[in-house]
């Protein structure tokens, strides 16, 4: 078999082809850009309005200042953009592949099937969300008076990668259940709606829910923990556990895909 380095190069080259092709295809529908821009702005306005309901009466959310809470909201918007760009367009097609039997062709390709299913397309319409989220994070962090040193910036970058990986694994595992549950509107909607909890710092929830959002559905690691690092107050314990959760989540997604495929018997059988 091939050596690891050329193998990685081959995947990167394939990825470039995939995304260039889907970008060319998507740019045929430029009206989408306006719609996405409107959706991102409306969603942000609505989230800001909801946050202001809490802060407007002199309360705060779990001890977070208004600007610090905006960093969390920015990270949520960023991850939502990532979902629209990569997770949703790719993983929502698994169910169609299962239903119509085209998963057979994916499995026959000389490339890892999880990679193909997770990275085949790229939708530029999530980019407004990614940009808005990034801007909000930076502006809110500066306004909150965050002066993170180099170490904290590295930690924040690592935690962002970890949170993206956790999000991906959650999506992938749920999308892979379509091997069993075949319907067009699939289970990922549940995830998307539960992750809305990540718009707010996790310490704002009552103890039971906080535990749930940390241990069962790791919402805390998606937005709150990276936000702490950006604000320069990350604790080593949280950084390590976040990286650990990301690694375990990724491994589980890998294992689960192999497990699910054992139950896949193609469309005709």
């Amino acid at each position: 078999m091939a050596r690891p380095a050329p193998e990685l190069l081959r995947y990167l080259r394939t990825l470039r082809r995939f995304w260039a092709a889907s970008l060319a295809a998507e740019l045929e529908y430029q009206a989408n850009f306006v719609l996405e821009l409107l959706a991102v702005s409306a969603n942000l306005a609505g989230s800001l309005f909801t946050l202001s309901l809490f802060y407007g009466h002199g309360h705060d959310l779990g001890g977070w200042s208004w600007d610090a809470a905006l960093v969390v909201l920015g990270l949520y918007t960023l991850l939502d953009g990532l979902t629209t760009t990569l997770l949703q367009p790719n993983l929502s097609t698994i169910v169609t592949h299962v239903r119509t039997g085209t998963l057979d062709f994916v499995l026959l390709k000389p490339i890892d099937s999880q990679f193909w299913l997770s990275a085949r397309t790229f939708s530029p319409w999530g980019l407004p969300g990614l940009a808005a989220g990034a801007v909000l994070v930076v502006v809110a962090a500066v306004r909150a008076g965050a002066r993170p040193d180099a170490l904290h910036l590295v930690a924040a970058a690592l935690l962002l990668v970890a949170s993206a990986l956790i999000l991906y694994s959650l999506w992938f595992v749920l999308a892979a259940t379509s091997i069993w549950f075949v319907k067009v509107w699939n289970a990922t909607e549940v995830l998307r709606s539960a992750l809305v909890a990540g718009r707010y710092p996790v310490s704002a929830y009552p103890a039971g829910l906080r535990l749930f959002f940390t241990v069962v559905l790791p919402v805390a690691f998606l937005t709150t923990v990276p936000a702490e690092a950006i604000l320069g107050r990350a604790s080593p314990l949280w950084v390590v556990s976040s990286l650990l959760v990301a690694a375990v989540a990724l491994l589980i997604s890998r294992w689960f895909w192999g497990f699910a495929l054992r139950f896949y018997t193609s469309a005709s059988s």
Partner: protein
Amino acid sequence: MSRHHGPDRSLRHAVRLARVLLSSQYALMLEFRAEIVLWALSGVLPLIMLGLWSGTGVASIPGFTPQRLVHYFLAAFVVRQFTIVWVIHAFEEDALQGRLSPALLQPLNPFWRYLAAHVSEQATRLPFVLAIVALVALVHPAALWWPTPAGLLLALLATHLAFLVRFVIQSALTMLCFWSERAAALERLLLIPYLFLSGLVAPLEAFPEPMRSFALHTPFPWMVWFPAQLLSGGTVPVARGFGVLAAWGLLFLPIAVLLWRAGLRRYSAMGA
């Protein structure tokens, strides 16, 4: 037609048609009960917001005690469960897959079938909604309450009316599928103000003043906040609520019908 062609006969025909449609759609929905559980779970937003509100600023909502807040959000959760509308996605799928043409050959407007599918889905959903409510009651023992008979009846009526109005509005939007591939995107866009203004994230009493009046001029709060307040025993303008809902429904019904006729002409004109 026969000699007994009259209101009696057509009524009997309608009843039989409704029974057949509902029982066949219910059987179909039972097949998808696992997915329907997932769909029921995807309406957790009011429960998440309940967590946030009970953790912080309850005192800042006039007229709300912590217990009333639990009741309100639980009621909002239930109301949302029975007002979910997905006709645009079903129609888009049917049109794309070519299932619309055979449906048009039948002597029945396909939207009756969609309506029956929605009602059947709600019936399938009912046990799971009760299970989730029971689960919340386990966490918050004080969460359950007995609505007054009048409140329950009004809430039931308001919820069904809200469902019908949402169904009619979304059906009107669905008709744009005949002209554009972006109709579902428009629906997603419309869902955003619904999400923030309907009372799912906070009871309208928590809105600051200019915002609350603005929200009350949109149809959104009357679809969740109004039935939820009726169910949880809050004070709402009952007559105004039913009036507003009926007005929005009556406004969009002719639009939907006209667009359907125009769309059908276009559909057949394309040679499909």
